[in-house]
């Protein structure tokens, strides 16, 4: 049913439709409303799940690790410092091959304390072995949550899935969203039936010592699985489209790229803003397009390379920075493109700094004229130490 609804509320509805059995989360802005709605569903008797009150995100992640290992579909969500605190356990969840669902309401990481949006938190734990998928709008967040369960819980996958949604922009924004019916979701997503679980009739252990004789093979197994996920995501996306009639689940989305000379690349909600600017500049005769990255882990190298192969100029927008190197998406893409394509990296939208239409216009102009691996956009020169001033 189509509704005008707040993002966090819609994501809680989507989670409820997936029939989680255990929910453990610790409140942190801007994730809070998602957990509040889920707790309300449980309190009202509308969701038959066990909600576990925890004293930290480390405990929240530990609870869902345990409950998923016991064979229950389990859910948590967090942001920023909370995600960093979870990170030790997230590596374990992936290593134990447990398909926990996690929503990351993307937010900047301290210090200085900043509650606003960027994507530094999820990027910081990109190497944990989780599947990471990014939503452009609230509808996509809903769709990726539902599809994400099916991707992670595939017996050939069995890996945690993190759906990344830009904090405030998508969690606190309200828009028209189709919340699917329970029948359709049940039809799409079967009950969780893991190939292994903690079972007194068939005892087994998870996460024991893996000495040098076996550890490498566990990493190799996750790596090979994530390569397979590059085939599984489009397949699940097809099944999702068959049932729900939306092609929102995939590895990438190409927006007017086929004849584009200049292509911007981005993830998350900023893609909407970029699409509007692409349309405005197309109307002025500019051949410009957007490549939206949905799956960041596993990273769809072949698809990205193909989508950018005909471009002259590529401008990559990162809402994160690997300090001492470049934006994460830039490094990922620069390494797979041929020398003849001019590739620019931009760092923008950190700590909630607004990415305006004029910001995107500046990025396009620089992409066409310059070649920088890591250009900070909309810097306030007045705040910079004199030796760091760029003009």
């Amino acid at each position: 049913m189509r509704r005008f609804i707040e993002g966090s509320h819609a994501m809680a509805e989507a989670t409820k439709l997936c029939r989680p059995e255990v929910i453990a989360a610790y409140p942190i802005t801007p994730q809070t409303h998602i957990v509040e709605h889920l707790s309300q569903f449980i309190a009202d008797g509308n969701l038959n799940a066990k909600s576990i009150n925890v004293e930290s995100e480390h405990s929240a992640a530990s609870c869902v690790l345990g409950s998923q290992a016991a064979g229950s579909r389990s859910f948590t969500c967090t942001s920023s410092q909370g995600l960093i605190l979870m990170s030790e356990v997230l590596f374990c969840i992936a290593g134990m091959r447990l398909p926990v669902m996690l929503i990351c309401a993307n937010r900047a990481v301290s210090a200085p304390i900043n509650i606003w949006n960027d994507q530094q938190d999820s990027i910081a734990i990109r190497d944990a072995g989780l599947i990471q998928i990014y939503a452009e709008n609230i509808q996509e967040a809903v769709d990726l949550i539902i599809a994400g369960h099916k991707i992670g819980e595939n017996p050939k996958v069995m890996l945690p899935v993190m759906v990344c949604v830009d904090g405030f922009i998508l969690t606190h924004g309200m828009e028209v969203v189709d919340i699917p019916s329970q029948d359709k979701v049940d039809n799409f997503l079967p009950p969780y039936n893991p190939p292994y679980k903690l079972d007194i009739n068939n005892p087994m252990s998870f996460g024991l010592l893996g000495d040098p004789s076996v550890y490498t093979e566990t990493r190799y197994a996750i790596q090979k699985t994530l390569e397979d996920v590059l085939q599984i995501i489009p397949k699940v996306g097809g099944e999702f489209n068959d049932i729900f009639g939306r092609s929102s689940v995939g590895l990438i989305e190409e927006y007017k790229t086929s004849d584009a000379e200049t292509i911007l690349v981005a993830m998350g909600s900023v893609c909407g803003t970029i699409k509007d600017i692409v349309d405005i500049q197309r109307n002025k005769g500019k051949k410009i397009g957007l490549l939206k990255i949905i799956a960041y882990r596993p990273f769809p190298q072949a698809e990205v390379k193909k989508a950018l192969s005909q471009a002259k100029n590529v401008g990559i927008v990162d809402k994160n920075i690997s300090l001492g190197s470049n934006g994460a998406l830039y490094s990922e893409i620069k390494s797979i493109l041929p020398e003849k394509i001019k590739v620019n990296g931009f760092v923008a939208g950190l700590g909630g700094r607004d990415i305006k239409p004029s910001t995107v216009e500046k990025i396009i102009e620089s992409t066409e004229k310059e070649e920088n691996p890591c250009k900070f956009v909309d810097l306030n020169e007045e705040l910079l130490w004199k030796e760091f001033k760029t003009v």
Partner: protein
Amino acid sequence: MKEIKIFARAGQGAITTAAILGEALFHENKFSYAFPHFGAARMGAPMNAFLRFDQKPIRLRSQIYNPDYIIIIDPTLIESEKCFDNLKNQGKAVVALRENTKIPSRDDITISSLPAEQIALDIIGKPFANTILLGAFAKATGEVKLDSITKAVGERFKNKPEILEKNIEAVKKGYSSV
């Protein structure tokens, strides 16, 4: 696409105002994106809520800098927040008036003002100006029907019957006051 910026203090219902308006526009098959701008806001701190709407889904995610319409819930913010500075040429403002409220003079805009807090005190018994301003907005701009606003208010307060009728009356009073 049209853009609205709402000026209020945290706790005065700016987000609710944007949410009700978005819901009302949804009933007219329009697409909205309503969103707050959060500071690390405490009750009483100046804050904004925004709403964009169009016949097609909204993709633009930036804040609103040059609104077509402004709604001022708290007129003590007019000067400090420079509420009128970036209102578009031919834009419209809906303003809750208090005694001594000074509205800057601009010839190129239309201003609809009403003592919304006093009306709210009379009808609802509390100084919540937002539902009155929503009625006034519908009349002043013609962007949304009165029926759509009352329907959206009805849904918003469906679990609070004690204030539902009063808020519907407030919307209608706001509509007829400008």
